[in-house]
């Protein structure tokens, strides 16, 4: 009798789990395209902000190529290449800061071929609202402070938050987040700077793999 009621409860629980999962999967299927579209629009908007229209005349979003180089990241990294009158004019890469206060911070870093930073934008993060989220353009101008900066070497000491003796502000009450962002931007900038000629020449695989969540055709 006990076994019976246990079986009944187990089955019922399983049934609920099945229905819940089906519901979530259903909603996910419905929203998948819209979410990918939102991500795409956001990346594109950020891209156009840091690479102004007068610096390129090609379609940035479709210039995207997936770069697999363990020196930059273990995951394939989307690289965007801007050209003006057929000449390389801007190079952007998605960078990931793995050491944020809570989880990874996805960034977009763009430089000119000569190494000057065009700009940085935060694409996705989970930092504490009111503290670490000042890395968003909407919350603070901090992320703009990268524009125009140059990196003179792989261990350029100015590329750190002020508390560590560098030139970038930290936020009141939050040092870990800006430190992580500065570190990630620094290594991405260094990589792009060192490999820019190569990156403009390479033909990279297209960025529309499903893993990027950007297949919407």
């Amino acid at each position, binding site marked *: 009798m006990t076994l019976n009621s246990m079986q009944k409860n187990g089955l019922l629980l399983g049934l*609920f789990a099945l229905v819940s999962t089906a519901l979530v999967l259903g909603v996910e299927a419905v929203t998948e395209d819209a*979410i990918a579209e939102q991500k795409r629009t956001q990346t594109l908007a950020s891209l156009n902000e840091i690479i102004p229209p007068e610096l390129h005349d090609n379609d940035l979003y479709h210039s995207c190529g997936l770069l697999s180089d363990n020196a930059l990241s273990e995951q394939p990294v989307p690289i965007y290449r801007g050209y003006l009158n057929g000449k390389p004019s801007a190079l952007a890469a998605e960078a990931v800061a793995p050491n944020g206060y809570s989880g990874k911070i996805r960034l977009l870093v763009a430089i000119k071929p000569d190494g000057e930073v065009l700009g940085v934008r935060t694409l996705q993060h989970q930092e504490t609202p009111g503290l670490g989220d000042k890395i968003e353009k909407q919350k603070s101008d901090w992320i703009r402070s990268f524009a125009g900066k140059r990196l003179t070497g792989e261990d350029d000491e100015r590329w750190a938050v002020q508390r560590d003796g560098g030139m970038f502000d930290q936020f009141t009450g939050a040092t870990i987040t800006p430190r992580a962002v500065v570190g990630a931007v620094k290594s991405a900038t260094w990589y792009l700077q060192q490999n820019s000629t190569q990156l403009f020449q390479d033909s990279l695989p297209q960025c529309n793999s499903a893993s990027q969540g950007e297949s919407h055709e």
Partner: protein
Amino acid sequence: MSEFKALTKQGLWENNPALVQLLGLCPLLAVTASVTNALGLGLATLFVLMGSNITVSLVRQWVPQEIRIPVFVMVIATFVTIIQLLMNAYVYQLYQTLGIFIPLIVTNCAIIGRAEAYASKNKWHHAAIDGLMMGLGFAAVLVVLGGIREVLGNGTLFDGAELLLGEWAKQLRIELFSLDYPLLLAILPPGAFIGMGFIIAIKNRIDAKRAQIQSTEKTVTRARVTAES
């Protein structure tokens, strides 16, 4: 109708999930650094609370006592995930602002508390009203606490409201005073605890005052009755 009135009173004041039941304090204390975040999480919680209350009430006949808690948890988790996906797809700006707090709604004990204490024992439309009122009560406390902390910590109100409500809400932003050094205590979690403590104290004080007035009124009426008879 009287049930509606009773539920309203319970949810908003007498049995307020945040002030009296002291449930869901984790998200409450975490997000209330500004009014905008508080309002956003308040609304999301409200929807989840109503959805889970209605669902729990509808399935209550088929759920045996022994497995009701896992079933409630599943119902709530499903609602939260669905709301998260929908927000991600259709209100991306807001989703970015509230990102990590949406999953936190699952851990809000106010929701499972209402499922267990009310929805599993009552008709679905009553459960819906209970969810609405409890949700409103919770959201109201969030907004008040968010307001206090934002004013003290930032000198503003409704900063960033356009992320939640659209472009027009930029006009809502009020700059009360500008601070060179923000009162960090108000923004950090201890500030949330202290602010919350004050709000609860004020509520208790009001209740005490009302009880006092009521008891004096009672004695007066009683005196009159004795005088007449």
